[in-house]
């Protein structure tokens, strides 16, 4: 904790600059391109997909990749390419949703916890310790099972699992920002803690939170797929990647493309987001290096 | 006249950054004779620390470009040596003391062990002998309980104590040159005085030449014989400390002496230097100090060479002429 965060955050100014710096590194530029492509594919799925992701054609079940069905079809003859495209909507959308939920709640809790201290801090941090004392996938499994297996509950479970990361990060940053002289200055003016937290602490702890969000996106998408694979997330016939593999698994030896291509979609998506996360971190927060990495 | 330990000749050095090459030293020249204490004085961005690190070749190789010039240590150019040759020189012939005694020591090793490793590296002696040498090294930097201190970790010691350890490390091989990079800046005044006395005493005892980097004119006046004044990566003036402090020749040195209040002086009005320190990326084409100089004239738009006789040299077009007194 040597360089104060505020000194670092002066490094960038404005979105255009950020974009320029992001694309300066070849790896990161590749990641940006991949992420943009994936998001576009997900958004445009209804127009790009050759077929509905749920329309059944029993006569064409388990057909190999062809000009008509680029990735082949599944066990009831649904077009796999279309299902994977629609799957991107679910993975990216739900992933983003649960990370943002965790980040929002975590930032607020952590910022107040860090600045205010005392019993609120103690209480919040002990609660986070409990959440952190479980391997996150196991906790996510338990929570998702307890809430009842469906996509929404899986997203909620992941948000809960990710929450302590943000609370801790926000709290640590809030503590170090509180030691900055501008916070002391604001106190000498006679300003209250509500003003100080919202005007001084939170704006300055946003950069590391943004970094953490981009770092977590890949992991979250992975968690959703894993829960889906274990039957704790989206349920068939929803075109969710993990759930698709848990069904397609049976056809590994004879129709290898079915689970393999679906898994490749997960892999590429998660890798693109992770690469982007690394790039954003190196840019905005050079002090923090890889930490943890993944949870599932 | 004694032989030079170190000669820096027309050293021009740049850093590779995301924004392109930044030239941090421009034609820096000075020398240090055996057993002599030379002060390298400047403000931030003047290049004083860069010069020191370049001499010991401690700058990161990937981002440092020596554009021209030489750094001769005992007659050999440091810039062209191999890393293996350099390792023979670092520590053994050139000792180095850093500004922050807090971070200059390995936090996970006792002070004694750190000294032991370095001493065994230099002298290749047995453990037992090394242990005795550690003891002596600690005594030499005036640590009264060497046994106790040797068993402690850096974080258990005060800043002054840590700096003594760093000095003991640097002096352990009895080097010909000691580079002290702002060794007292992070310390309290009373501790600073002790450390200065220590460095001075060790240098005298062992005949070690010292390159002392500082921004504090008071410190220079107390322990150095000659000084080199740097501004924005250039030597603007160099010469014996006594002469420069009495009769500064460069407008920057003169302005600096008038701008810094000294304890021994009261009543003389302070004269602030107008303007800000220059941005190394956008230096003026001529004299680097010209934009802030009260004696600026047309000629100052071309770069003045460092001219002088003997030990004294000044980079100013006014030098040798009568400067209008202001």
């Amino acid at each position, binding site marked *: 904790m040597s360089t104060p965060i505020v000194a670092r955050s002066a490094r960038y100014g404005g979105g255009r600059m950020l974009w320029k710096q992001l694309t300066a590194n070849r790896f990161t530029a590749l990641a940006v391109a991949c992420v943009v492509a994936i998001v576009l594919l997900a958004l445009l799925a209804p127009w790009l997909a050759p077929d509905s992701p749920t329309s059944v054609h029993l006569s064409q079940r388990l057909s190999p990749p062809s000009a008509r069905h680029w990735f082949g079809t599944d066990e009831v003859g649904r077009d796999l390419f279309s299902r994977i495209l629609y799957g991107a909507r679910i993975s990216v959308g739900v992933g983003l949703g649960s990370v943002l939920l965790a980040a929002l709640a975590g930032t607020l809790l952590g910022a107040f916890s860090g600045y205010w201290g005392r019993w609120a801090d103690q209480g919040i941090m002990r609660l986070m310790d409990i959440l952190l004392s479980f*391997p996150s996938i196991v906790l996510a499994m338990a929570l998702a099972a307890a809430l009842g297996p469906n996509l929404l509950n899986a997203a909620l479970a992941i948000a809960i699992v990710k929450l302590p990361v943000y609370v801790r990060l926000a709290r640590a940053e809030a503590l170090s920002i509180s030691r900055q002289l501008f916070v002391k200055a604001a106190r000498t003016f006679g300003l209250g803690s509500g003003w100080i937290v919202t005007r001084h602490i939170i704006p300055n702890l946003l950069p590391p939170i943004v970094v953490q969000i981009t770092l977590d996106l890949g992991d979250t998408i992975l968690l959703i797929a894993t829960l889906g694979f274990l039957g704790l997330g989206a349920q068939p016939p929803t075109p969710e990647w993990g759930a698709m593999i848990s069904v397609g698994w049976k056809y590994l030896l004879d129709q290898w493309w079915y689970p393999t291509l679906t*898994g490749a979609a997960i892999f590429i998506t*998660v890798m693109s987001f992770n690469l982007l996360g690394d790039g954003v971190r190196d840019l905005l927060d050079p002090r923090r290096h890889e930490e943890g990495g993944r949870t599932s | 006249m004694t032989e030079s330990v170190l000669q820096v000749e027309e050293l021009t050095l740049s850093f590779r950054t995301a924004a392109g090459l930044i030239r941090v030293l421009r034609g820096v020249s000075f020398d240090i004779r055996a057993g002599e204490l030379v002060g390298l004085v400047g403000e931030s961005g003047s290049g004083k620390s860069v010069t020191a690190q370049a001499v010991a070749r401690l700058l990161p190789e990937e981002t440092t470009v020596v554009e021209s010039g030489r750094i001769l240590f005992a007659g050999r150019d440091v810039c062209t040596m191999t890393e293996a040759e350099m390792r023979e020189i670092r520590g053994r012939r050139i000792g180095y003391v850093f500004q922050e005694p807090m971070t200059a020591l390995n936090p996970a090793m006792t002070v004694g062990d750190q000294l032991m490793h370095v001493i065994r590296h230099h002298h290749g002696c047995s453990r037992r002998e090394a242990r005795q040498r550690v003891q002596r090294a600690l005594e030499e930097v005036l640590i009264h309980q060497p046994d106790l201190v040797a068993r402690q970790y850096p974080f258990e010691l005060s800043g002054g104590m840590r700096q003594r350890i760093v000095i003991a490390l640097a002096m352990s091989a009895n080097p010909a040159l000691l580079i002290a990079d702002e060794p007292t800046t992070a310390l309290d005044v009373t501790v600073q005085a002790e450390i200065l006395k220590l460095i001075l005493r060790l240098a005298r005892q062992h005949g070690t030449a010292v390159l002392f980097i500082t921004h504090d004119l008071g410190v220079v006046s107390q322990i150095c014989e000659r000084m080199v004044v740097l501004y924005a990566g250039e030597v603007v003036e160099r010469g014996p400390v006594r002469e420069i402090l009495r009769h500064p020749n460069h407008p920057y040195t003169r302005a600096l002496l008038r701008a810094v209040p000294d304890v021994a002086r009261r009543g003389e009005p302070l004269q602030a230097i107008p303007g800000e320190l220059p941005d190394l990326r956008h230096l003026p084409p001529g004299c680097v100090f010209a934009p802030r100089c009260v004696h600026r004239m047309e000629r100052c738009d071309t770069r003045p060479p460092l001219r002088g006789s003997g030990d004294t040299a000044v980079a100013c077009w006014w030098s040798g002429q009568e400067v209008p007194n202001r």
Partner: protein
Amino acid sequence: MLVFVLFGVTLCTFFMSHVIPGDPAQMMAGPHASADTIRSIRRQLGLDRPLWVQYGTYLWGLLHGDLGVSIRTQQPVIHDLAAFFPATLELVLYAFLLAIVTGIPLGVLAAVKRNTVWDYAARVVSLGGVSVPVFWSGLVLILLFYARLGWLPASGRLDPSLPPPPTITGLYTVDSALTGYWADFFNSLWHLVLPAVTLSYVQLSIIVRQVRSSMLEVLGKEFILTGRANGLGRGFLIVRYALRNALVPTITVIGLSIGSLLGGAVVTETVFDWPGMGNYVVQSIASLDFPAIMGFTVVIGAAYVLINLVVDLLHYALDPQIRR
């Protein structure tokens, strides 16, 4: 701490499973069960009593090593888990060793040879590891080494034709070596290759990333410069100065990454049909067997807390600032 955490987590999962989704008896019985069936399940589970009594009963049982009775197997959950535990331990242990032995040197190499081919290779490898779904990498390995090449077995701990070694520790490789069942020894090692590699890849990547970054951070510290200025050799500085200091944060991360190892074991065991706790819990999930799921969660939580206790002890040994 352990007690506190277990208390907290049982509280969380218990109330979540009992309060939020409505009636667990209804869920367990399925949508078409009659009211009578549901009532009997409620009585059987003690669901007709007040919630805090139920929780008290559960905690009381937990203190006595009683995790309830599995709905699916009708066996005490603790017995089921005990039976499956050694298989999981064996898998996790080998994966962990593999990850440590390869991850730390690779991370050091990447940091020391920064921005060279070595570094890029290590970064690509580790990026893959943090991005790959375990169920997919397992699947690809099976397809390649079992289905295509036929080199390695893809399921179970031992060929069905071989009798398992006498139980001492429950770890087949250890037991067979101790009792001289060499056929079992090699066969069980053979079976371990694919699942252990699959599982360790994730942790390996985390370790590589962490070692690389903390090495880079430490190598940039001033005391490394002091060491260089004092003429110490590069190898000595890397190992005794840099790695020694880099290990402190690394050990924390390794401890935390065991979490992903334990979590990954669930998926790996499913993929390779490995008869461990993970396989057991996945089957329990399929039949919404709450006592089994909770029992598994509690056991894993306890193991995780114990591991992190060990990490704290290692910290104590490595970091003089904590020791003094």
